[in-house]
């Protein structure tokens, strides 16, 4: 492919207590691509994202080994977790609207990073809400509580929030669970657009979603990579592993 490697994962192992859930996986994510991660429940998709932005630190008894390098810097050894996390946007499956106003929700990360200029914040908020296809619905009530929005709107709010610190890497964890198909399509289009500015890892249960927007797809199964390849291969009959073909085509799983 020849593109620059953005994230380099080598021999990543993760265990909770004594149960290993990721068994030494290695893969690369290229700059400005959308990598979809598919696989059934318990295959370690969410845990993988948690490792990348180091929120795994907050789970007691979780033990990680191996290396995850973003731009050559090892995530697991970095001293400044906060600036690392600012480099990564994270969207969780169920929307978590912070109990703040819509404006404050989006301005949260820039403020934490030390931005206090009102104009600058206004710009960021408007920009991010527009990109998350939410601006038109909320522009007249930016002061109302973010938690009062509907589920789908809240999810778009969290996406706007994840974009607010202009991350290099955007991780989405099954973002479409709580939103309707039309909005999902809007966001998918948006993701394709912003791909030129960042690298996107998309964990999804919807195989078709991976097919629609990803450049490459990784199939995780019980904490191991079954196959990772470009979409043309994964969604064809030429998959290297028969399991991938069957999962993707809906024959099992």
């Amino acid at each position, binding site marked *: 492919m020849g593109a620059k490697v953005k994230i380099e994962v080598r021999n990543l192992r993760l265990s909770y207590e004594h149960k290993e859930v990721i068994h030494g996986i290695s893969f690369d994510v290229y700059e400005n691509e959308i990598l979809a991660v598919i696989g059934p429940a318990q295959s370690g998709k969410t845990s993988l994202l948690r490792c990348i*932005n180091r*929120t795994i630190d*907050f789970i007691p008894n979780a033990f990680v080994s191996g290396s995850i390098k973003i731009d050559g810097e090892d995530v697991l050894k970095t001293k400044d977790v*906060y*600036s690392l*996390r*600012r480099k*990564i946007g*994270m969207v*969780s499956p*169920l929307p*978590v609207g*912070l*109990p*703040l106003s819509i404006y*404050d929700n989006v301005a*949260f*990360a820039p*403020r*934490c*990073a030390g931005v206090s200029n009102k104009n600058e914040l206004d710009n960021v908020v408007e920009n991010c809400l527009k990109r998350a296809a939410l601006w038109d619905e909320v522009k007249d009530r930016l002061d109302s*509580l973010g*938690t*009062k929005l509907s589920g789908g709107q809240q999810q778009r709010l*969290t996406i706007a*929030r*994840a974009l*607010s*610190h202009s991350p290099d890497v955007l991780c989405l964890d099954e973002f479409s669970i709580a939103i309707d198909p039309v909005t999902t399509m809007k966001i998918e289009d948006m993701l394709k657009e912003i791909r030129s500015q960042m690298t996107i890892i998309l964990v999804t249960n919807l195989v078709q979603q991976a097919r629609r927007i990803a450049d490459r797809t990784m199939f995780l199964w019980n904490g191991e990579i079954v196959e990772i390849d470009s979409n043309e291969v994964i969604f064809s009959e030429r998959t290297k592993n028969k399991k991938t073909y069957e999962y993707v085509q809906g024959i099992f799983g």
Partner: protein
Amino acid sequence: MNQGETKKLKSRPLWSIYGEKAIEILIKVSGISAIIFVFAIFFFIFREAFPVLSSPNFNLKEFLFSSQWYPTSAVNVRYGTFALTIGTFSVTALAMVIAVPFGIGAAIFISEFCGKRLKETLKITIELLAAIPSVVWGFIGLTIMSKLITQFTGAPVGVNVLNGGIILALMSLPIIVSIGEDALKAVPDTYREASIALGATRWQMVRRVLLPAAKNGLLAAVLLGIGRAVGETMAVLMATGHAVHIPHGLLDSVRTLTANIAAELGEAPERSEHYQVLFLTGVLLFCITFVINITADFVIRGIKRKQ
């Protein structure tokens, strides 16, 4: 077999139906009893106090706004509780100035920043602090604190507003800490995770997310602390110096409404005017706590409406 089961369900024994009704009524009664008790208390206190309202020696304006308290004087009887009210307020205010920052700070530390072991130790210790009887606190104020205060400030008497305020602060701290900590614990973990994932430091997370999310509970913690401070009797009786006098500074002695009742009720002949006025002081105290609670309720509701 299926039919047998449905039959069984239909023929539910009579005692079970009436039993359920009875339990329902029992629960209703215990719920309503709270209201009955409050009104009964108010009624009986007021009944004891009522006759004095028509006495020639009594004047409501004087009772509320005069600081002359000479209940046993033979020629010049005066029932002014203003100094006592000010005493209660000054000691409570000082206690809150000390206890609120410490209490909320401790609650934040315990729930967010400290390790598991330390957390358990701290919680147990704080509960222990709550279990110390108030007379023991008064004793500490009377002996240890008063000595320290005369030593460090050069005040002529060690039992004063400062002493009472510190003692009350220590007494209301455990309440503020434990209820404040519960309020913070009730904030869903997803908030913490989301703000951390956005690159917030722990302190930023606490200040920008947790405190706004938990403000109702924290306010309740503070108000319960105030309630404790206003109502406390024995400790302030021993630690504030018991002088009927509007304080001009932290080092003046005062007397509070509660301490006044406790100290004088035993000596006032039953049904005498003095006795009745003391009950009226009780009514006043009741009204003060009532007003505080109502205000708190309105404040909390105001916050809720905004959300």
